């Protein structure tokens, strides 16, 4: 393909975009809005997934131990717990260790925990992992029977809920995204239909003088792809700004919420949004070129 040919395609596409600027602006805005919503959904989904995964890796059941107990008594309890059916692993974590961990989680905001060493509010605990999630309930029941265990807590439920939420968001997100993509493709194809109509004279002449089908189609396809591209740019800019803003604030206010860092997610997300913009634009114009450009 010659350079001058591409110049021709591009100049025809630009001519058409400018001539139908109202429709162009409408289509580009729709692409931008759809991609923006899609981006936000994806960020929500990957982060919820990440949070649930992180929580799952953490302890499933914690048994807090009476503070007055002697070391031997504690060791006895550990042995008893390890022998319980359904228990895979039981580790003793002193309250000092627990505080250290908390500090790590807080990262740069450790200052929030200052002074806790002298007056450690945490308790010695046994962290227990079960063989399977179904074992959690019976194990919890057994633990409560053991004298010297002051309190039992488990995160299973919250993790399950998080996973359920992630699934729900993924399904709802997918539905919304499909809907948005379909609407966007439709709008672009409609715009291209109008430009095909507006340029039927040119098309007629091109056919008459013997232009090949693809030569006639390319400017329209480029026009759609250009609309997709133009729409993806503001979407990407807004998604980036939103996520940087969100993570900055969450890291500052809620440092223990394990959000993915912008550098971890944004590059891939941006590529995805860009690719999807181009795809949606190309697909929309392809539909109209197929249906309305009888060459």
């Amino acid at each position, binding site marked *: 393909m010659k350079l001058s040919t591409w110049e021709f395609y591009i100049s025809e596409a630009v001519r058409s975009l400018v001539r139908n600027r109202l429709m162009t602006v409408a289509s580009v805005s729709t692409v931008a809005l759809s991609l923006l919503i899609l981006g936000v959904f994806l960020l929500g989904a990957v982060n919820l997934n990440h949070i649930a995964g992180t929580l799952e890796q953490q302890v499933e059941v914690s048994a807090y131990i009476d503070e007055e107990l002697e070391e031997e008594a504690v060791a006895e309890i550990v042995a008893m717990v390890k022998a319980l059916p359904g228990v895979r692993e039981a580790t003793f974590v002193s309250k000092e260790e627990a505080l250290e961990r908390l500090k790590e989680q807080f990262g740069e905001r450790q200052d929030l925990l200052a002074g806790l060493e002298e007056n450690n509010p945490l308790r010695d605990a046994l962290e227990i992992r079960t063989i399977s999630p179904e074992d959690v309930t019976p194990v919890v029941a057994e633990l409560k029977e053991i004298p010297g265990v002051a309190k039992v807590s488990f995160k299973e439920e919250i993790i399950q809920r998080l996973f359920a939420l992630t699934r729900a968001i993924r399904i709802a997100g997918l539905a919304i995204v499909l809907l948005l993509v379909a609407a966007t493709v439709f709008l672009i194809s409609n715009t291209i239909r109008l430009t095909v109509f507006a340029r039927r004279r*040119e098309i007629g002449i*091109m056919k008459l*003088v*013997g232009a090949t089908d693809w*030569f006639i189609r390319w400017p329209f396809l480029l026009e759609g792809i250009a609309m997709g591209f133009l729409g993806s740019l503001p979407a990407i800019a807004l998604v980036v700004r939103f996520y940087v803003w969100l993570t900055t604030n969450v890291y500052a206010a809620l440092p223990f919420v394990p959000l993915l860092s912008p550098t971890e997610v944004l590059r891939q997300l941006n590529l995805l949004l860009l690719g999807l913009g181009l795809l949606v634009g190309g697909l929309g114009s392809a539909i109209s070129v197929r249906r309305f450009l009888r060459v």
Partner: protein
Amino acid sequence: MISFTGVTKVYPKGVSALTDVTLKIKKGDFVFLVGPSGAGKSTFVRLLLREERPTEGRIVVDGVDTAQLRPVDIPFFRRKIGMVFQDFRLLPERTVAENVAFALRVLEVPRREILRRVPQVLHLVGLSHKSRAKPAELSGGEQQRVAVARALVNNPPILLADEPTGNLDPETSWEIMSLLSEINQRGTTVVVATHAREIVDRMRRRVIALENGRVVRDEEKGAYGCEA
């Protein structure tokens, strides 16, 4: 150059536009295609351009059997035929030179070649001085000259015109026909479907007369004919 053998065209609704047409047009011929409205002249043109396919019969153009053409071949086939219509079919927002150049640009002719050929062909049709004008600034005759220039700029072996003077006054019509005749003199095969009785009678060229889709007359140095 052009040969029709037993060509019949029946449109989907059952209208029989051409019936058993057999004729030959040799390279370098100048042919008028005449006949009353609905006789099948435009159908003849559309068959030649391969916009329609014959229901029966064979059409061979410049050695190509049009029935053998695959869809991808059609654009290349059309490059053999320069086409002129009654309504000019120019692009209103482009200048004369751009309109002519457009036909070459869509054929991916190199820019340098376009810059060489467009002034040449505009000179041939006598419009060098109007190359920067828009179609709306031209008279009907001038617009038709632009259309002729566009049809010719790629040097097709055949020039086909469907009522090229239908929208023009008699004097301008004569000028356009003279131009087509001049082009024929330079070696192009020219086929003109027309109603312009006086011109046909005056030019004394080959006349093929259609009536109800049949060839009723085919004469060298013919006239439009008495009826119709």
